[in-house]
């Protein structure tokens, strides 16, 4: 069981908006440690989608956005496209474990 909690799956219709929550604790997100998001397309290696909660690397469409509040973070995807079907992971650092940690991952299905 992951220290960072994500729903196993979310879905949305083409063009719609979805959000993926990442719930942590006072020893990781709540302690102020950075949160990052990764997208893993089927059969590919993960790539960074959002870093430090709200920042997009160059090349990532502005349909993807991140937020953070308290012990949680969230990834929002607007204007869903078929190519957004992928697994999404949040990642942070946990001071109790003294280790980087990943959320369990969320599979996005575009209907």
């Amino acid at each position: 069981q992951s220290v960072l909690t994500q729903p196993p799956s979310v879905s949305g219709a083409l063009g719609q908006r979805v959000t993926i929550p990442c719930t942590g604790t006072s020893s990781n997100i709540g302690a102020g440690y950075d949160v990052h998001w990764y997208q893993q397309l089927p059969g590919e290696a993960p790539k960074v989608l959002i870093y430090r909660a709200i920042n997009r690397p160059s090349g990532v469409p502005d349909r993807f956005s991140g937020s953070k509040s308290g012990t949680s973070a969230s990834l929002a995807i607007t204007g869903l496209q078929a190519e957004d079907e992928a697994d999404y992971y949040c990642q942070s650092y946990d001071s109790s474990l003294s280790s980087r940690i990943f959320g369990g991952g969320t599979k996005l299905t575009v209907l």
Partner: protein
Amino acid sequence: EVQLVQSGAEVKKPGESLKISCKGSGYKFVTSWIAWVRQMPGKGLEYMGMIYPDDSEITYSPSFQGQVTISADRSISTAYLQWNSLKASDSAMYYCARLGTLENWFDPWGQGTLVTVSS
């Protein structure tokens, strides 16, 4: 272009040893961390540990401490992940990823090395 290239897929028997590699290019190898991440079939990402090649400082996730060995050869810009005695449960895709000292996110990632352990 910053790039990590991993060694090819491996098929091993239980009890055998294995060392897989991750070669960095396009940046100063010694002053960025290289992390290893496991992904078991159909499962999520698991952080294993990382190494800072400049001084060989290594940290392991508690879940992987004592199970694997991380090392690096700065002369050839290559990091390694090693097992002394493989188990069937070690079958997984293994990714390496760069972690900057200031940019504390994993980017880029290697293409992955698939390890299959079967008798």
